[in-house]
């Protein structure tokens, strides 16, 4: 408990630090949101300057930071230059969509990775394991974008899945079951893409961790008691092999907001991805910092969860 409390205090400090550094780094890169307008022959330098000062871009760093901090306490996280509205609600809607996608995909990816990794560790050297190995290494070498484009193509050619978006046009009028079905249909492709992209490293980690453990004497002892292979793998080997996996799981949580960036762009999922890509390229500072803060929260939470799980699963670890 005391540990948790201390960790929380540290995390708040960390978030503070992240925000300062993020602002600083954004400052380092040349140009701001209004820079490209300078190349528009029909807009005068005066107007650009006026716009900059309207959004406070001409103020020194500490003052801007203070403004931002105030807005954080107000709960709106600054005003987006592009949208002219507070950042928080803009982010919130999209983050929800992203979480729906990544949450589903992560769950599936982990379930698959654990079962497949265990399976292939248990039958290592057999053809199933080999084929799986080749599949995972191919997936690792294919750039994600290519993978997602290919999926989009499949979707388009077969017509089995909707090719973008999150809901059909008449979503509001559907029954509850219909809504779920519609959502699931839209979710399928992006989630599959994300699963395929995140699965291979996980599988390799699970497999390698399991191989380490499978020959431990206590696993042999468990077998000696006639415990079924499945249970040996699940109850004996996995918890001991779990250590690196838990850390990775923390990472998965940490990446809940950022992992799906590319899928969302290619498969037009209305998540934070396309929005953020836009904002990053446009240097919509408060949106970027807002997104950084939001994903930092996930990062901090993810690592905390990972540490807690480590602590909970391995009684030998002491954390105090």
């Amino acid at each position, binding site marked *: 408990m005391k540990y948790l409390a201390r960790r929380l205090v540290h995390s708040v400090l960390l978030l503070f630090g992240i925000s300062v550094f993020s602002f600083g780094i954004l400052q380092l890169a040349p140009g701001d949101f209004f820079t490209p307008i300078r190349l528009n022959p029909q807009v005068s330098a005066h107007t650009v300057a006026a716009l900059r000062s309207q959004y406070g871009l001409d103020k020194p760093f500490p003052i801007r930071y203070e403004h931002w901090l105030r807005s954080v306490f107000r709960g709106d996280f600054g005003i987006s230059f592009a949208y002219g509205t507070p950042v928080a609600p803009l982010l919130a809607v999209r983050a929800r969509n992203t979480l729906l996608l990544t949450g589903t995909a992560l769950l599936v990816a982990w379930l698959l990775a654990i079962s497949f990794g265990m399976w292939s560790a248990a039958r290592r050297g057999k053809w199933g394991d080999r084929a799986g190995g080749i599949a995972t290494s191919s997936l690792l070498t294919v750039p994600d974008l290519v993978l997602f484009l290919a999926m989009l193509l499949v979707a388009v050619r077969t017509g089995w899945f909707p090719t973008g978006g999150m809901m059909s046009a008449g979503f509001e009028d559907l029954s509850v079951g219909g809504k779920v079905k519609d959502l699931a249909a839209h979710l399928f492709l992006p989630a599959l893409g994300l699963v395929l992209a995140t699965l291979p490293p996980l599988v390799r980690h699970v497999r390698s961790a399991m191989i380490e453990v499978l020959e431990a004497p*206590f696993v042999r*002892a468990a077998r000696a*008691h*006639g*415990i*079924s292979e499945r*249970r040996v793998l699940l*109850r*004996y080997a996995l918890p001991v092999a779990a250590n690196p996996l838990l850390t990775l799981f923390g990472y998965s949580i940490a990446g809940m907001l950022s992992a799906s960036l590319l899928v969302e762009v290619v498969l037009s999922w209305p998540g934070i991805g396309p929005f953020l890509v836009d904002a990053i390229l446009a240097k919509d500072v408060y949106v970027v910092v807002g997104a950084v803060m939001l994903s930092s929260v996930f990062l901090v939470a993810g690592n905390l969860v990972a540490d807690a799980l480590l602590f909970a699963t391995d*009684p030998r670890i002491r954390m105090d």
Partner: protein
Amino acid sequence: MQVLLRVKDLNVSYRGTGASQHDAVQNVSFEIGEGEVLGLMGESGCGKTSIALALLGLLSVEQARVSGSIQFRGEELLAKDARALRAIRGTGISLAFQEPELALSPVMKIRDQVAEVIHAHNDCAWERCRAEAELALARVGFSDVRRICSAYAHQLSGGQRQRVVLAQALACKPALLIADEPAAALDARSQGEILALLGKLQRESRISILLISHAPEVQATLADRLMVMASGRIVEQGPFEQLYRNPSHACTQAMLRTAAPASVAADMDFEMVT
């Protein structure tokens, strides 16, 4: 008396690191009848544990080569596949490991580890299994079962771990118990209790025991027959008392010598059998 286990020409050779190999067990043949206690003695490293592991088919192909014949209730174990073996392990033949710290999962509560064994052979609910596990633990002489149950292996003392392993082995009332040094880490009093428990089981439930122990007292308490090994071979076999009184082989003599330390004081020379 019916023969429960018949081992013929059992050979175990380990693949060492590199190309070397080590013939740990060579042409070993013996039988165990139902309800019989067969003592197995032999100097350290002579292959006792290897026999135990081979009986249960626990030596993986990468690790060792096992050949010969092992018949349990008339069925050949070496020919069985993993699934069939699993059905025999724990209920048919069960093993109490020599080094309990190696045989217990470091991250599972003691109660759960015992419950897992019960769960594997009885299709009852998990909660029931846990309850039975507590009983099984209580049977091997724990006074504060509650604490032991929720402890992890590294939080127990050596003797406590050994009793846990024994509880696991006994949990499913096996037909044949292989007890590999079941009392080595126990003080005289606890040792007596455990041996009494085993004796009771043998008498009442007619379980057979392959008792591996280097302590003559332990063997004397339980063993009907004794088998003495040296360097992977059986050198002598017979009723315990007979061997005790008239050991014909030097090894047997050395094993059963009751007052070993005294001989040290007398600075007796030992013939090392390696």
